[in-house]
């Protein structure tokens, strides 16, 4: 067990645990904050795996923007502040969801574990440095990059259009 593995393991456990609390918690805002913890530890995982830029982008966008949006939405929809049992679906649905979740995890994990076996990798941190990433994005991936910009623009306009106030003046 190398140091990298131990670090990876700790961050992974943190991510999974906080994810669990995020989806089973009873206070909405706490759920959103536990999501922050989960996303942050995933950023750490990316770092361990040698992807610096990805980790930073994760923190910037996911933690900085997405979770903020989630918190805004919770406020605007008057989410209950106090602990509420009504956040969860009826028990039957929860049991079904648990079954499906376990099944998905089992299938994905099982298939991949069979494929991967006992192999190990050497992490090369240089590969995730800004310069190679930037060269890749603005070199081979420039077209998807531009399309994604358009996509973001479209999403922005769509969000505006959907929530526009339509009563005639």
């Amino acid at each position, binding site marked *: 067990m190398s140091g990298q593995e131990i670090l990876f393991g700790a961050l992974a456990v943190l991510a999974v645990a906080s994810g669990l609390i995020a989806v089973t918690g009873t206070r909405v805002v706490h759920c959103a904050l536990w999501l922050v913890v989960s996303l942050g530890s995933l950023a750490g995982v990316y770092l361990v795996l040698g992807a610096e830029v990805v980790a930073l982008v994760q923190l910037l966008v996911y933690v900085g923007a997405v979770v903020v949006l989630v918190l805004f939405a919770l406020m605007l929809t008057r989410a209950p502040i106090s602990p509420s049992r009504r956040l969860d*679906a009826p028990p039957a*649905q929860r049991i*079904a*969801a648990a079954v*499906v979740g376990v*099944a*998905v995890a089992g*299938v994905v994990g099982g*298939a991949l574990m069979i494929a991967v076996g006992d192999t190990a990798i050497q992490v090369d941190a240089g590969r995730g440095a800004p310069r190679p990433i930037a060269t890749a994005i603005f070199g081979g991936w420039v077209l998807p990059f531009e399309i994604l910009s358009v996509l973001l623009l479209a999403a922005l306009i769509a969000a505006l259009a959907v929530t526009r106030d339509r009563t005639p003046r």
Partner: protein
Amino acid sequence: MRQNAALLTVVIPAVFAAFGLATGRISRPWAEQSALVGTGAALAAAVVELLAVLRDGPAGAVGFLGRVDTGAAVINLDLRADQLSATVGVAVGVVALCVQIYSTAYLAGEGTPEAPTRYPAYAATVTMFTAAMMLVIHADDLVALLIGWEAMGLASYLLVGHHSERPAARAAAVKAFLVTRVGDLGVLMAVVVLLIGAGTTSISSLTARAAADDLPGTVLAGAAVLLLAGVAGKSAQFPLHTWLPDAMEGPTPISALIHAATMVAAGVFLVARLLPLYLVVPGALGVAAVIAAISMLGAALAALAQDDLKRLLAWSTISQVAYMLGGVAVARDAGGAAPGIFHLLSHAAFKALLFLVAGCVIHVTGSTMLTDMGGLRRTHRWLSWVLALGLASLAGLPPLSGFWSKEAVLTAADDAAHAGAWTGWVVLLSGLATTLVTGLYAGRAWSMVALGSPRPAQMQVGDAVTEEPHETPAPEQDVHKLPAAMTWPLVVLAIPTLLLGLVLIRPSDLLAEMHVDIVTGVTGALLALAGLGWALSAPRLGAIDISAALPAPARVLLRDGYRLDDVQRALVVRPAMAVARSVRSGDRDVIDAYVRGVARASRWAGGVARRAQGGLATGYVAWAVFGAVVVGVAGMVIT
């Protein structure tokens, strides 16, 4: 000549029936003319055939509907022209023409919207019936005869139920059809037996081979007995007689034509035609004699207690047809059918006359019940004398035709009895008893209709011009006049009723083997007179109706025809309806239940399936993910 004439007697009315049916709706005169011309031409053809046959002898093998090769045998649907067919053909033609003329007045006008007369259909059906009867008479092949036989049954059904707006008429038509159908099944099976057993259904070849003892006994016996079932059905003999009294729901001219003169005689005609077969089968004629004896006496007694004039005449017909059948049943050789045939001819004349007179009386009084009639002697004297003529011939008073024909039958029975046949005794004794009872009910009919005081209905002013009053009870009252079309046929039919006995002076070959024994004749005449006198003496005893002398329960039993209708209903109708009901409930509750069950199962399945559409978005996602997992696992397992 004979062949063409025989062919024309069948073809002409058939063509005119079709023509009348097609065009009668256009105008009533067209319907009338096509019926009258068709029937008249058929009569003319029958007369020509009779003259030709008398001069040249019989002729067979007149091709009519060609030949049919069934594989097992060849059926030649041919006609035959001989004395029997020609004579009966002339009788049928005369009665049919009289009935057609009479009907133009009986069914005059359009009727009311609730009870239309529907004359064009009626006239065409009567013409069609005439064609069918001519076919039965002239057929030389049992299959051709069967075609005419069934067509007659159809025409009888249509005509009995002519006033189809009345439920009683509809029920009577169905009953007539079904009861005769039971008999017709016997005829059909007999045809099949003969086809398979003897290889032919040609009447001339069958009679020739039977006379030469060339046919297997079992085949003959089976065919003979089965044919007797058809005879009993069509000729309204016990036990298939129950349809005839109810068939009086039809118009009175129909009763005159079908149920007095022609169709009911067709059964006897069939036995006469196939007499050589019957002579060879031991016991067949015995069965016929027993049926005839029972029907003769039983029907005469029932006629005594009827309250309805037409039903009285219907029971009388059953009794007289039994005479005919009895006359044929005592035959001892091939020519021995003569008494039965002679009685057929004379009965055709006087019974048709009686029915048409009854129609006039009903027309005048507006009711068919004897209690609503009376005093005809004073309001319509001529009509009452014609009625007397018919009733006297029915009773068998000399020198009328009924006397000669009935005594011929009784003489033949007497001869057979003295020759040692038990059938002769049976027919003779029941015949003599029936003569007495016939006199009784004939006298009763006359005293109830003609004697006494007239009912007010007879005195109403008619819609026709009144002729010079013959015997008005009071000068200020006008009597209901009968149209000429209803009176002239009575004259035409009265002539043979009076004079048919003259045939015995120089009989043709057909009627040669017939004579009247003087002892039997005197006995019969005395019995008839006794009956008539007894009935006519009733007024002296206080009532006008002699049947009031019967004890009331007996009278009711006789009037209801010995409750045989109820027996029939219990034995046949109720089981059949029960079977029908069980079949219907089987179809509805068992088979339909499956069909309904399919529908219900589909709805239930739909209800279950629709629960998957919960409306919850995450629910749909769950199903999608679950499906993806299943596909993934399946993919992994398969590979």
